[in-house]
């Protein structure tokens, strides 16, 4: 169970203070995948980073009760450019105490990098980096995957492979997903929540959440 207790998170911007969450308490249900909606700048990405622990709340407490949570997927920023793909995998395995050989084998066959795995990551194309990052996160079998606007990587065949892998993961793991594509959210998520004005409202069906979001969008200037 992921639980937020009286969590406040604000950002100080040049234009003033932006409130992401104001004294919010809620539980993120397990066993169902959650789509996060909200207008631009509401703080959806920040919410994911609070869940993962990349960011700390200003006030309040977030407990994760031994649930293993991924880093927000969708960017390949965790890699050290001058290290090879293999050495980067090794580092991640040590951090998460996973077996290096198993993970490397999995990523090698999934990401289709071939001999590039032993080249420095800063020689990779952005597609190759994304494949490495995606493969790594899939190898780790997290309880909850955080997905921040996942951008499809590679050609049609590889996209299909990713989608199949993802659907497979949904059997055992949950997903918390931020996306601007309602179709993607509806495809992967069963429940939804809408972040607006420092409050997070949960809905039992993703369609209800999308309807609320659409009405919010109409109010936008």
């Amino acid at each position, binding site marked *: 169970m992921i639980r937020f207790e009286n969590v406040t998170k604000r950002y*100080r911007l040049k234009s003033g203070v932006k409130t992401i969450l104001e004294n919010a308490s809620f539980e993120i249900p397990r066993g169902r995948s959650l789509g996060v909606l909200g207008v631009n700048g509401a703080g959806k990405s920040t919410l994911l980073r609070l869940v*993962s*622990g*990349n*960011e*700390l*709340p*200003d006030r309040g*407490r977030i407990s994760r009760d031994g649930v293993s*949570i991924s*880093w927000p997927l969708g*960017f390949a*920023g*965790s*890699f*050290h*450019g*001058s*290290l090879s793909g293999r*050495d980067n995998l090794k*580092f*991640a395995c*040590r*951090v*998460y*105490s996973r077996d290096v050989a198993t993970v490397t084998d999995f990523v090698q066959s999934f990401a289709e990098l071939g001999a590039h795995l032993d080249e420095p990551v800063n020689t990779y194309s952005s597609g190759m980096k994304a494949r490495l990052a995606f493969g790594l996160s899939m190898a780790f079998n997290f309880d909850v995957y955080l997905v921040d606007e996942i951008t499809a990587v590679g050609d049609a065949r590889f996209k299909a492979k990713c989608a199949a892998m993802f659907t497979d993961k949904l059997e055992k793991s949950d997903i918390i997903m931020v996306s601007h594509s309602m179709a993607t959210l509806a495809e992967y998520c069963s429940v939804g929540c809408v972040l607006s004005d420092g409050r997070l409202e949960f809905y039992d069906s993703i369609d209800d959440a999308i309807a609320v979001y659409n009405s919010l969008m109409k109010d936008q200037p």
Partner: protein
Amino acid sequence: MAGSISGAELKRGFALQSRIVGALVLREMRTRFGERRFGYAWALLEPLVQIGILSGMFFLTGARPPLGNSFETFFLTGFIAFTFFRDPAVQATNSITANRALLSFPPVRNMDTVWARIVLEVVTNVAALCFVVLIFIVLEIPVAPNDPLRVAFGLLSMTVLGAGFGIFNAILSTFVRSWAMFFGWFMRIQYFTTGIFFIPESLPPLAAHYLKWNPSLQGTVIVREGFYNGYKSTLLIEYLPFAAGISLALLGLVIERLYRRRVSKL
């Protein structure tokens, strides 16, 4: 974080954090020394090169070393003491700002990267020390300390001081971008004021009166007291490097605690 933390939780947290620091040390070794072919060789050779150049210069002046008969030995004690202070301080300074990318793994905390660099520098310095001593033995230059424990104590004091600066700098660098540059100037001055070239007793009284309050000079004094039979400094302030190092570390950690929620990880 409200509530009390049990001993078991503390132990688990410590085990997790030391595993991550270990992973970071291995990674730092790869990135610092791996890509440049002579990276690690230079780390080992630098003291020898420095001692060689300094000894050659002072030999030409015809002067005699302030302690003992060998300039090589005098500069060895001074420069090795200096590196034990300089390296953790300098290398830890940009550990947080340079490691933004790997901080996107949530279990990796800002402070882990600082500890990792300090550990790596201490290991490297000990290796460099062994290497220099070995070369001195081969060249038959006097290198046997009178009181090895006191030398080790002096090097420890320099490590604590350097680590204290490193922790403080790493945290301050996340707020003040140009801090690393200011610290670079500070270290360039410290090269001359740490006591590589002199002992405080041989300074003019006014200079000694002020310079004895330089913590790194005191660390060098402890090392030389342990090394040279019969050298007891009249200007020793033994606690100074420890006090300065621990105060700086605590100050840095308090700042980190107060502002971690605002700065957080990037």
